Structure formats: structure tokens, C-alpha cells
């Protein structure tokens, strides 16, 4: 039994806003003082800041596209190599680091759970294998649907919603997912038919379906199945000037059903001004504020070299002209989805990039309910996850923010309202957007808070004049009650879990799927499914099944 004594605790899920209190850990869980029989160890946390472990709701850490990114970013891997020691495995890369390094760096930043947002069904096995080799972190993934031929045919044939629900549930179970993501609904498929753009109400020329036709039944399915995390939506027209209208239309298309719109920064572009590129953060933030059914993550960009990796081949192909260095990969995958990987350098002196930076921050600052806003850079698309402490400083420190604003492309700075926004995030709000809110959205009842019964995933910070330093180097991180980071360095490798849901589905769906697999897929249905034993065998990972509503 461990007593964490006298820390200043930020635990928004329990309404605790900077209260000095003691925490007790027993068998990996937080318990009430009254449940304590004998304290073996007291750790004095007076003067320290205590939060639940960080949770990243959208980070590309597992699966084929990350590895393609690693392959393309050879220079970055050559330049950043880390050796092994008695405790730690080796690896390389700062932008899309290799798997062990990813786990260590996240933990050293106080994060204890990360979720891969775009797990292609046929690539699920690889995603889980990679995540099993990503230490320190609990993981989970959202299975990618909405460009898969089987589903598009069901929709084309106007099949009963019940059948769609069964299919979605079956896919979640077969691939061991925690949620469902849709990327450019029907658009990845359309690209394979040589369509180069697809608006919300434009038809995929083979199936005759519009993105709206695909979105709606998927929203319905997740709602009906009671999957805690709502449909995770990467809308159409990613990165296209003027796309904010599509985003507003997409929000309206949800018709009040729960929906998560991801990396919304990339979908908040107007086309005003001489350069036909402007910020539409204000109308987007206003829509987010008004639609309580909605949550977002921002997908903030940061200046510097990164690599973008997305299932959205249609838009990634279009974006390849901006590739830096000039190499890029697109892949069509199994009549199911695709992937596009384009290295990119965001430049602070470039008008568009500088304005993208402003737009992300404007969204953070103009949305008024932090419980529906999650902190992400869409790692590595907007920036590597290691830039989070810097991002937090931008959110918390207006004068710092305005200093940086003064150094970027002046036309962009002038075109943005950022300089006039006074808001500064509080520590409490940071704890919401990096812990409590993502946990609540994902239905992780035992994570993201420090109440009794919670998993003892805890981060302890040493206050610093520079808030970036504080967030970059936590003093302690506890995973399931075990101290695994001390003074900003990994000191133990804890056991971790894969988080999944298992919504009910009519087993009858498997008969139609079996027929479909036998005819069209290039693998057997039995081999497509990932069994619990298989997953747990990858790395003695335990599977945590969360309840559906």
C-alpha cells in the first residue's frame, strides 16, 4: 500500500480542482483512506501537482501506415537513435518513433493510455502487434469502416439498419476494437474509381452513395449498439480551403446523434482573402459550442518537419505535391480502405502553415466546453506527440502565445483573431482535455480520474516557472500503482492492457460474411478474426472489455 501524501490534486472527473489531499494505492487501484490497513510506503508530494495519467484519444501509433511513415523518414531515424540498456529496448526516430521509443516517450511525458484511431480491419493484426510492442501504455483502436465494399453494398441495397448494426458490431469484435472511425466516408473507395474529390452530397460513382449516406447509418449503428465512444469522424475535404462548410454540414448531418469530429483544425478552413485561405475557426467553434452531441479533437499543427499518415488516400494523393522531402506513398487496400503517407514540413514563415497553427489554437480557445475538446496533434500529422508540453504552454500562457504569434508569417498573424483572444487554460482545464474528457468519451470508467476504485495511473509534476518544462518532465508516473517513471525517466516496465468493447451482434451476420469472404476477400474469415487468446499472447497483454450502454 502506497500513500501519496499532500499533493495538489487536479481530478476533474471528481470535481477536484487543485485540492491538497492524500491518495492511497492498493493493488494497483486508488482506495479510500478507510480501506487502508497498513501503509508500506509514503511518498511526500507536498508542493507537487497530481493528475491522472494522460490519455491520448487520437494518435497514430500502431499499424501499417505508421511503419510506412517510418520507412519514408529514414533520415529522421538515422538522426535519432537510442540504445538499449538493462531495462529499456532500443529504437529510433523522433517524428514517428519506433514502437518501444514511442511507449517510453509517452510515459516520460506523463501519458498512460493511447488510442490508435485508424485501424483498418485487414490490418488489425499488425496494429495490435505493434501496440503490444509499445510498452508503458494501455492501448486500444477504432476500426476503420465506411469505405469497405461489404458495407457500401449493404447501404447501396438499402438493407435494414439492423443488419448494418450487426455488421458494425461484428467488425468491432473481430478486430478487437474500442470504437469505429470513418474516414472520408466513401471517398477512399471513390478514389479507387478515379474520383479525385467527393463532397458530402456527391455520389461515389460506383455505389451511387454520398458521404452523407454512409455517415448516417454508421452514426445510427454506434448509437444503437451503445458503444461508449461515438462514431469518430474524419470528414470529407480534409485540408481543402473552404472546407469549413463541409464540416458544418457534417455536424448538421449528425442530427443530434453523438459524434466525434477528429482533427477539426484540418477541417476549419475558409477561402477569404487574397490567398483564398482563411480561418473559419470561429464558425466551427460556435457550432461545437451549440451542438452538445458533438466532441472534437483539434489536430494542432506545430512548426517543423513531420510526416502525415492517413487512410484518406484521395486527399493524401492530392497533397503529395507538398511532400517534403519529396517522397510519398499511397496504397489501395483490400476493397476496404487505403493509406497515404506524405512527409511534410510546416513552416512558420509560410502563410498557410502559420494560419493553420493559428486556426488550431483559435479552436482550442473559442470552444467553451473542455469536456468536449481533446488535446491532439493527430500525431504525427500535425506534429509529433512530443510537442504536447509546448502546446499546453501555448494554451495556458497568453503572453507566450502572443510572443510566438509575433514571429510567424505576419500576414497570417494579422488574418487571425488569435492575438486578441484572452483566454488561458487553467491546470484544471488541461486535466480535462488530456485526461478526464477523453476517458469519459471512450467509456473508460477506471481511467482518467483519481476517485476510489480508479486504476492508479497517476502523473506527478514538479511545478516550474516554465509550464512546458513541467509537463515535459513529470517527476513520477505510476501505472497501475507501480512507479514507472522517476524524474522524467522510465524506471520500470509495467504491465498494460488493450481496451475493447464487445457489442452484441446477431451471429447470423457471420454467415453472409463467410460467403462474402469466401468469394471476394483474399483471406479466410476464420483467419481474419483475432481471438482473445491470440491478442493476449502478443505480449502478455490483458484484454479489458468495456460495457456498452
Amino acid at each position, binding site marked *: 500500500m502506497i500513500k501519496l501524501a499532500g499533493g495538489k490534486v487536479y481530478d476533474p472527473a471528481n470535481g477536484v480542482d487543485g485540492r491538497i489531499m492524500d491518495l492511497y494505492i492498493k493493488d494497483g487501484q486508488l482506495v479510500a483512506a478507510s480501506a487502508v490497513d497498513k501503509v508500506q510506503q509514503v511518498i511526500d508530494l507536498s508542493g507537487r501537482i497530481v493528475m491522472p495519467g494522460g490519455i491520448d484519444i487520437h494518435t497514430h501509433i500502431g499499424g501499417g501506415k505508421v511503419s510506412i511513415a517510418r520507412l519514408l523518414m529514414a533520415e529522421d531515424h538515422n538522426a535519432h537513435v537510442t540504445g538499449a540498456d538493462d531495462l529499456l529496448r532500443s529504437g529510433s*526516430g523522433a517524428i514517428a518513433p519506433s514502437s518501444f521509443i514511442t511507449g517510453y516517450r509517452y510515459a516520460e511525458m506523463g501519458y498512460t493510455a493511447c488510442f490508435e484511431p485508424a485501424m483498418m480491419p485487414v490490418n488489425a*493484426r499488425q496494429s495490435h502487434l505493434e501496440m503490444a510492442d509499445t510498452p508503458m501504455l494501455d492501448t486500444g483502436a477504432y476500426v476503420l469502416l465506411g469505405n469497405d465494399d461489404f458495407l457500401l453494398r449493404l447501404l447501396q441495397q438499402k438493407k435494414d439498419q439492423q443488419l448494418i448494426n450487426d455488421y458494425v458490431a461484428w467488425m468491432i469484435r473481430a478486430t478487437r476494437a474500442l470504437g469505429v472511425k470513418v474516414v472520408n466516408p466513401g471517398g477512399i473507395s471513390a478514389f479507387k474509381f478515379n474520383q479525385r474529390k467527393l463532397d458530402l452530397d456527391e455520389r461515389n460513382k460506383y455505389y451511387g452513395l454520398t458521404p452523407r449516406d454512409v455517415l448516417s447509418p454508421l452514426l445510427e449503428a454506434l448509437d444503437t449498439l451503445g458503444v461508449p465512444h461515438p462514431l469518430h469522424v474524419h470528414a470529407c475535404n480534409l485540408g481543402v480551403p473552404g472546407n469549413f462548410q463541409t464540416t458544418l454540414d457534417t455536424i448538421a448531418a449528425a442530427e443530434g446523434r453523438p459524434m466525434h469530429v477528429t482533427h477539426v483544425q484540418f477541417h476549419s478552413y475558409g477561402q477569404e482573402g487574397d490567398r483564398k485561405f482563411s480561418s473559419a475557426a470561429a464558425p466551427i467553434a460556435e457550432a461545437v459550442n451549440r451542438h452538445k452531441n458533438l466532441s472534437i479533437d483539434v489536430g494542432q499543427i506545430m512548426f517543423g518537419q513531420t510526416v502525415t499518415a492517413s487512410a484518406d488516400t484521395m486527399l493524401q494523393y492530392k497533397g503529395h505535391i507538398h511532400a517534403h522531402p519529396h517522397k510519398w*506513398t499511397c496504397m489501395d487496400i*483490400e476493397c476496404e480502405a487505403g493509406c497515404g503517407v506524405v512527409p511534410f514540413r510546416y513552416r512558420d514563415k509560410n502563410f498557410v502553415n502559420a494560419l493553420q497553427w493559428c486556426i488550431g489554437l483559435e479552436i482550442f480557445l473559442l470552444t467553451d466546453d473542455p469536456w468536449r475538446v481533446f488535446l491532439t496533434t493527430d500525431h504525427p500529422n500535425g506534429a509529433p506527440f512530443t510537442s504536447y508540453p509546448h502546446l499546453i504552454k501555448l494554451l495556458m500562457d497568453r503572453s507566450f502565445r502572443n510572443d510566438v504569434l509575433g514571429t510567424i508569417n505576419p500576414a497570417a498573424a494579422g488574418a487571425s483573431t488569435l492575438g486578441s483572444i484572452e483566454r488561458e487554460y487553467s491546470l484544471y482545464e488541461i486535466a480535462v482535455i488530456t485526461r478526464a474528457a477523453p476517458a469519459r468519451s471512450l467509456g473508460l470508467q477506471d481511467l482518467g480520474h483519481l476517485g476510489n476504485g480508479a486504476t492508479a495511473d497517476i502523473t506527478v509534476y514538479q511545478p516550474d516557472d516554465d509550464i512546458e518544462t513541467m509537463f515535459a518532465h513529470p517527476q513520477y508516473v505510476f501505472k497501475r500503482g507501480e512507479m514507472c517513471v522517476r524524474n522524467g525517466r522510465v524506471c520500470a516496465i509495467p504491465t498494460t492492457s488493450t481496451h475493447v468493447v464487445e457489442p452484441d451482434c446477431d451471429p447470423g451476420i457471420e454467415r453472409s460474411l463467410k460467403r462474402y469472404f469466401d468469394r471476394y476477400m*483474399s483471406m479466410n474469415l476464420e*483467419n481474419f478474426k483475432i481471438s482473445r487468446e*491470440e491478442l493476449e499472447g502478443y505480449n502478455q497483454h490483458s484484454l479489458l472489455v468495456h460495457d456498452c450502454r
Partner: protein
Amino acid sequence: MTATVTCPFCSLLCDDLSVRASGSGLTVSANACQRARQGFGLPAPATEARIAGVVAPLERAVTRAAQLLQKSRKALLGGLGTDVNGLRAALRLAERTDAALWHEQEPYARQNLKALQSRGGIMTTLGEVKNRADTVLFIGNNVTDNHPRFIERCINPAHALFAGKHRKLGYLGKPGRTELADCEGHELVTLTDQGNGLANHLALLRAALTQPQWLAAAELPAPKRNKLKQLVDMVGNAQYGALVWSPAALPQDQADLIIHACLDLLRDLNVKQRFAGLSLGGNNGGVSWQSVATWQTGFPAGVNFTNGRPSANGVQAADADCLLWVSGFNRQPPPALAVPTIILSPHQAGASAADVYLPTGVPGIDHGGNLFRTDGVIALPLQKLRDRGAPSAAEVIEQIVERL
């Protein structure tokens, strides 16, 4: 028994086989090619470990292997014919012993990798070719030789979602006899050349495709011009085309050039239409090696550890002072190096000459696991089909690591 056995003997990983025990081996009764029949038919693994050719308890042999590796300063873990778990273990061992790793398919894979790392590619998968590609252009000679059921599964499937029964096929190079037979019923245009070389032909085709006026003006013999014209029309009319090559089937002195040219051609074509590449390669765990090495170390090939730090400096077998050879899928003996040699294999090829021989099972026969398919996206589970007590390479390597 339903036919869901995954075949580990080439990177197509067909998983529609059915297999039954017969004598000391296994017999495949459905859907296997010759290569698979041969693989499944190999005798069951040896059960006895050896030290310097003499039968020894496994424990002692493992300890001896650990000693040799510990003493070495530049060990080479070679062959790497094993599954995902075997590769994960090998990386662990290399990290602990500052060893280098080298997969037997790497000389071919490297050509692909070099091109992909310098340019990137527009690629596709088996399922897309099967269902969507109405046009397929093969680049090389006997392109599918080491992937025998490619044409059966992807060009002649019984059912396809989009592509019709009859496909348009082009062959830049020389098709093999079985390939020709398998392609019967499809329109096939071959541009085979005795002298000029494949790279040259590819350049001609690229020029003809990107600059239509060039072809009319070019000084070419009429038959060649006609063939090129046919290929240009075929490619231009494709709804969805696939360009298929196999690094191992390319003339090795031109492979680099040819693969670059393929990727460039794909970039050109995709400006107006959809066309994507598929590389057939990475047998014997080669694709798995590239995948696991990439996610664990950040480097896809030629991984080399010094002081536990990975690099992609490549590997000189001649520099090695100790060789650990893993060959789970075939009887390939280790290269003859005058250094202490440890063999992990079901088969005893070279075992009597080795310092240590550690018997292991065949992945997908003696133990389960995972392998990655040639398109690099799909990992398939392997099944355990018999129980003769043969451990996996992963288990044996982990035992070695424990004794370091």
C-alpha cells in the same frame, strides 16, 4: 476439416489449404501448389540438439550457443527464416549481443526498399488486384515463379467484385511456361526482348505512355512499335491497373533501376488514372522481417547493433565472427563462414558441421504464430498442425537470451 490452413511457404500466404498427417510428414489435400506440397511434405523436425555434431541435451546446446554469442563481438543472425515472434526474439538477442541481422531475402528486398525509401510508391494489395484490376502488367521474367498461385488467386479468381472474367495482361519480359498456361483466356501482350534489357523496355513504354507523339516518331522496328502501341492502349484504357514485379525475378544488375522506373511510371499514370504496384517478394519470413524490424527499430533492413544501438549500416557476412542461422522453412544451409556457427532449423542441413545445432519447428506446422503477406498489410495467423514437441525459434532464442 475446413480448408483454412495458412501456407507459410511463400509470401502469398494462401490460407485455404487443408492438410492431413501422413507418415512422418504432412500431405496437403486441397489448394496447394507444388511449392507448398514440397514444404508440407518435408520430414518432421529433428528432435536432438547437437554440439559439434554430437547429440547433446538441449539445455547444454543452448548454453553453448549463448557462450559463443557472448564471446563474439560481431555476431551475425542470419537467414531469419522464422515468424513474427521468432523475429522479435532475434531482435532482442541482437540488441543484447551487439549483433547484426540479415534476412536471406534481403539482397532482393533491398532493391525494393531503396526505391521506396527514396521515392515512395503507389501500391496495392492482393485483394485489390483480385477484385479490381482489369489490367495487369508484369515486369520481369517468370515474375510469379516464387509465388505460384498468384495468377490463380488474383487473375483467375472464381469471383471478383469489379473486374470481369477476362482481363488485359501485359508482360514486359519473358513469361514462364506455366504462367502462359495460367493466363490463357485473357488478352496477353508480351514484349520480350533478347538483347536490350528490361530497363530499356520500361523506359520505352514510359516514354510512349507519357508522350504519345514520341511513339509515332521513334525509330523502332515495326513489331516493337506495334507491341508498344498495344501496351499503351491497354494501360491507357485500364479502369484500374496493377503493375506487378518480383525483385528476385529481376536481372539483379538492373533491379534497382527497374523498380525506380516502375514507381516513376506509376506516378505518371496516376495523374489521370488509377494504377498501382504490387511487389511479389519476401518469402521465408522476409516481409515479416521488414515489418517487425521497422516497427521495433525504425529500420527496415540491414539492422546492425553496436552498443545496443540499432543502425541501418548493413551487414557484411565476411566480417562476422559468429553466425547464428535460422532456417525454419527450408533446408537452406548456412553460408560457409570460418566462424563458430549455430543453426536453428527443423532440418539438419549443415548440422553436423555446425558448432551448435538447435532443432526448431516449422512455423505454421509445428507451432502457431504470424507471418506478413507480400503486400505488407496483412498478417495471417499460422496454425499448429502437429505436435512433435519441436519448439519455436522464438522459444529457443529466448532461452539463449536468458543465458547471456
